[in-house]
């Protein structure tokens, strides 16, 4: 009888019409290792919550470790969601409609993953509401907490219309009408999301820039905001589009399907490249001011920060030149970015560059001594920390896999599949 129509896939009635998806069995096989990894991550998280942070290798010196590095990095990558929304709804770049749904899902995964890890890091999730009920308004972290939770709520609301476009759910008229009315208001959410994201990306950088007791991180700035506030915002919106390109290319590689047109990649790469150029220029200027004025003013020579070979001057050069300037040059060059190989190389380098920046700000800041009798200390995460990290990665893959299978993440996929 009817082959595909009768359901080579048992969940055929829920799948997007015309979207060629793997049979359910193969999909489950794909998910199996990720669920196992998620299980290991949950066990690691359970140990940390049940027995306390002694399960980690963090201590009084390393109050931030792998988790905060992970948080800062994935929140920067997640900026692709708000920035794409801003470009599409506010600046009217309609061609980004082809990728906005996947950007929202990626943003939601990044932010929800970050909030979960923060809850484990804080250690007492049952008292998490204290931060809202008794906020310390003088702390940048309070701003970060408020903005991240608010923005996660906004992302959840932005995710609802995508869920309601599922084939089965969209057959329920009330869902479809609500989705229609909510969709019309997405511009308002894009503006709110941009506002929230701008502030928490900035505050994440700002909270390092204001550390006067850590000359490696401390920066001068404008009014109450240190330069790191602005550099974090800029680096996040520069790398967000690159991360979108990478994930979309990865999904394309795994599924073997064209998901978006080349013009979308080209636009994202161009935006990412030019923003990286601006970021690298400002970052270089900031580094020069810091090395020649800010650090010497508190008794440090620039070279003092780079005497240890493990985190020597090479990491500064790598961050600015190899993983900053080079991807910027690749992405602003039309011929280069039109080649898939160069495009992906540029995207990977840009993402690594921002990850290095977040690593430097979290780990290197704490590794360096600030007092004459302080030793240089290196930190390695415990297996529980690594497991939790991998658990978040697995959660992201599982969430995205389900979303890709059952929701219209790439509206042009069907059309492009026939060309």
């Amino acid at each position: 009888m009817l082959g595909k129509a009768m359901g080579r896939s048992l969940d055929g009635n829920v799948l997007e019409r015309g979207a060629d998806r793997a049979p359910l069995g193969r999909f489950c096989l794909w998910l199996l290792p990720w669920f196992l990894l998620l299980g290991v991550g949950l066990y690691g998280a359970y140990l940390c919550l049940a027995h306390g942070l002694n399960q980690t290798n963090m201590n009084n010196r390393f109050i931030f470790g792998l988790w905060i590095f992970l948080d800062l990095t994935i929140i920067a990558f997640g900026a692709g969601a708000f920035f794409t929304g801003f470009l599409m709804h506010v600046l009217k770049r309609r061609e980004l409609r082809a990728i906005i749904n996947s950007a929202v899902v990626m943003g939601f995964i990044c932010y929800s993953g970050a909030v979960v890890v923060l809850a484990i890091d804080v250690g007492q999730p049952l008292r998490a509401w204290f931060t809202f009920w008794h906020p310390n308004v003088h702390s940048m972290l309070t701003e970060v907490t408020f903005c991240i939770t608010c923005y996660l709520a906004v992302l959840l609301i932005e995710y609802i219309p995508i869920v309601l476009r599922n084939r089965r759910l969209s057959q329920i008229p009330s869902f479809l009408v609500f989705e229609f009315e909510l969709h019309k208001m997405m511009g308002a959410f894009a503006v709110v999301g941009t506002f929230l994201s701008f502030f928490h990306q900035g505050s994440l950088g700002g909270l390092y820039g204001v550390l006067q007791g850590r000359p490696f991180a401390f920066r001068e700035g404008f009014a109450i905001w240190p330069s790191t506030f602005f550099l974090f915002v800029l680096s996040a919106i520069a790398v967000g589009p690159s991360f979108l390109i990478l994930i979309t290319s990865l999904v394309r590689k795994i599924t073997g399907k064209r998901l978006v047109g080349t013009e979308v990649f080209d636009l994202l790469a161009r935006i990412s490249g030019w923003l990286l150029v601006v970021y690298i220029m400002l970052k270089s200027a900031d580094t020069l001011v810091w090395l020649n004025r800010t650090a010497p003013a508190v008794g440090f020579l620039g070279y003092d920060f780079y005497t240890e070979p493990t985190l020597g001057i090479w990491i500064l050069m790598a961050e600015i030149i190899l993983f900053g300037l080079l991807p910027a040059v690749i992405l602003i060059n039309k011929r280069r970015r039109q080649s898939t190989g160069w495009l992906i190389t540029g995207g990977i380098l840009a993402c690594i560059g921002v990850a290095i920046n977040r690593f430097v700000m979290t780990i290197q800041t704490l590794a360096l001594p600030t007092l004459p009798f302080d030793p240089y200390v290196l930190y390695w995460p415990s297996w529980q920390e690594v497991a939790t990290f991998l658990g978040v990665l697995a959660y992201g893959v599982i969430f995205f896999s389900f979303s890709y299978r059952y929701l219209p993440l790439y509206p042009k996929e069907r059309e492009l599949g026939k060309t």
Partner: protein
Amino acid sequence: MLPGISGFDWSVGHVIFLAIFFSVLACVITVIAVAILKAVRDFTKHKAEAICWDEEFRGLPLSARRCRHDISGRVAGRTCTNGFKCSHCAFNDEILAKETAPQDAHAFGFEMPPGRLYHRGHAWVEPQNDGTVKIGLDDLGSRLIGEPSKVELPERGSHLQINGVGWRLTKGGRSIRVLSPVAGTVIATGGPQEGWYLKVKLEDAKTGFRHLLQGEEIRSWLLQEMERIQRLLSPPAAGISLADGGVPVPDFTMAYPDADWDEIWGEVFLES
């Protein structure tokens, strides 16, 4: 957080920070509340079906959204952006002002009786002498489905809207909805012996049938539909090859059991 809570003070920083936070919260809650209220209003004002169709139309591939006058060769490269609401299309009025030739009873082997008008979702409309209309599934649509395992007709007294859900068929575990070509009240239904049909008392006779395909444009539309179906039936590597001669089989699904019928029905019956 709020006055009276331990740690709160009336400092400028505290007030500004919390004012911004609550403004954002108020904005989010207001937007959701407005969306819910508007959705409720859409239902009470009977706009829901039209919205559902507009949403459906937005998700259709470009090939399914060609303007009827592009299909008939009167204009080139025109795509409909109006949800096939030709009654409200000035361009359509202008074109239909010209006389249309009577249609054939047969086109490409499909039965297309004279006097019938056609909706792009493969429903026919036959005006009756008493001012009512009969509506049913056209010959191509019937052959694409073959023998349905279930037919769900609306009950007598049900209200239909143009491009709303007319009736549903089930085949191979998949539900297929046929769009209603007219707006009105169902006053009678026909079973399998008479050929499935609905008899409808029109809501507004003045609206007329300008949104329906008629005359010579039916042949062009049928040709386009056959090309689309052939393209969907062809293996990806092969080009389109139209049959030369012969008559269409009564059940296409039996002739092409391995085709992705779910996708084909979606495209042909305008379901995204």
